[in-house]
């Protein structure tokens, strides 16, 4: 039985505690195991559904398409497969959405699309999502899930790290809050660019969050890694993540933050006593 997937549509086995759950309950509880609390991965669409106001998400920029500049071996077939599997054109979906009625610029990553890897299209979408927030004075919410940069686009993927970060600078200049939600996994080139310079960083419990892949960091280990290395909890203790938020509380936390940090955008001036 595959990870957190439906068995004949009725049952599902938790990959973490191995207990069996009713599919309906499992989906209703946002794919969080009721026995062990494990947060199973969500698709971009499910994430949107449980995060933003019902029906408020309007996708934009869905017309972007990858160009295989390097003619990288096997890239296009893999890409096509991912498109078919996910119904998305790349690993990120962006758009306008609302949180308790407040407009936000929203982006959500799809780990199922080539491991959520960031090539030019994903980079462009993240950048547009941030720029839209800066231009229209909307807080930006990015839900991350990525193994890192997309190797198959080579150097063009690498520079997406800079491109997406430049857009964060735009948000800062515009006084627009940028909140990153790190879900399992948020790694490497995505972690080492826009996501880590968000104003607020929230993470789901036990999400894997790290710079180097397990292989690399194991080789490089002079110091022994702690048992919770590269988990959200460890990264929280290390000061990189502001809060671990359970999935059922995520929407409420985002609303509280957008309400507080984005107040000046809605009223023009938010100073007490002014």
């Amino acid at each position: 039985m595959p990870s957190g997937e439906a068995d004949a549509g009725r049952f599902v086995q938790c990959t973490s505690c191995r207990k069996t759950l009713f599919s309906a309950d499992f989906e209703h509880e946002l794919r969080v195991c009721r026995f062990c609390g494990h947060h199973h991965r969500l698709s971009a669409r499910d994430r949107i559904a449980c995060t933003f106001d019902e029906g408020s998400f309007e996708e934009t920029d869905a017309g972007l398409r990858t160009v295989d500049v390097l003619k990288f071996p096997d890239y296009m077939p893999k890409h096509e497969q991912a498109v078919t599997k996910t119904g998305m054109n790349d690993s990120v979906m962006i758009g306008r959405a609302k949180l308790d009625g407040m407009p936000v610029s929203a982006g959500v990553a799809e780990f199922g699309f080539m491991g959520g890897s960031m090539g030019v299209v994903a980079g462009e979408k993240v950048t547009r999502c941030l720029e839209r927030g800066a231009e229209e004075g909307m807080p930006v919410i990015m839900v991350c899930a990525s193994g890192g940069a997309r190797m198959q686009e080579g150097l063009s993927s690498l520079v997406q790290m800079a491109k997406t970060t430049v857009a964060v600078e735009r948000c800062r200049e515009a006084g627009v809050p940028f909140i990153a939600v790190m879900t399992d996994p948020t790694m490497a080139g995505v972690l080492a660019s826009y996501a880590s310079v968000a104003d607020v960083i929230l993470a789901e419990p036990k999400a894997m969050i790290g710079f180097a892949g397990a292989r690399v960091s194991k080789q490089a280990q002079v110091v022994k890694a702690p048992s919770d290395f590269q988990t959200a909890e460890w990264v929280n203790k290390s000061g990189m993540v502001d809060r671990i938020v359970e999935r059922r509380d995520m929407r409420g936390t985002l609303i509280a933050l957008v309400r507080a940090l984005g107040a000046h955008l809605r009223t023009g001036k938010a100073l007490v006593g002014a």
Partner: protein
Amino acid sequence: MAKTWKEWEQPVLELEQMIERLERAAQRETDPAKRGAAEEKVQELKQRRDTYVQLRYSRLTPWEEVLLARAETRPYLLDYVGTVFTDFTELEGDRRYGSDRAMVGGPAFLDGRPVMIVGQQKGRNLQERTFRNFAMSKPEGYRKAIRLFEMADRFRMPVVTLVDTPAADPGVESEGRGIAEAIAASMLAMFGLRVPVVSVLIGEGGSGGAIAIAVANKVLMLEHAIYSVIPPEGCAAILWRDPSKGPEAAAALGLTSSSALELGIVDKVLPEPFGGAHRNFAEAAATVKTGILEALSELGPMSPDEIKRHRYDRFRKAGSFEEASRAAVR
């Protein structure tokens, strides 16, 4: 000389136990005459307690103020956060090294309007105290504070700091990660802010660790809080090689709220409820809330540049000195 605030609270405790016993007895009493007598006695004891409290708290020595400011019965940061403000969302990271539990901060609402809160949190029992490192922040605490200050500036949120720390953490690791730099950088960051900043000294204002987050446009101080350049015991140890002379040092250092007000170091003393903030927390919280709201409303009309300039000027003129005219010097 008192060694703990409990020494002068002991008579109150005893009186209150008596009052409680008598009240219970009076309730059980069926004879109206006897009940009336008991109730009268209760009233008398309450009167006695109040007179004692009033007298005692109106003549606390500076050393007793020190003991009281350190008392685990005092309301702490999170008590105020939970009553004065609403919808607090704690943000933990310094984005550098760690999550400091002595320093707490994040956005919240004050009368429906967003503010950024930063302050130190003490613990009431050993477990809490250890978790909070006795409210002694390490560098990562001050670096988190800087992050939150800068965020508040970006999002035009007034900053409210609640100060309550014996000192910054003085350990080897803190030195190695630059506790001195962290304190200085926090002050520097506060001077750069273009939003109003109000600080309230709610308990212990312990030297550099305190002023690091108290570079405000308005500095308020609870009546029984203290604010000192050095712990009195430390001062006594250095100057007189006798740490037990803390009481003398406390008197010399001018660390009480009235002294701080007189020196112009704080702008306003917030009177505490009858017998101290711990005796009536709701009233203390209301005073703090009003104090902050009034301060913010006085600062309200200023432009971002004026706010920054105001803070600059406030600290620029700190301290008195004499100056011979240049002509006279030459």
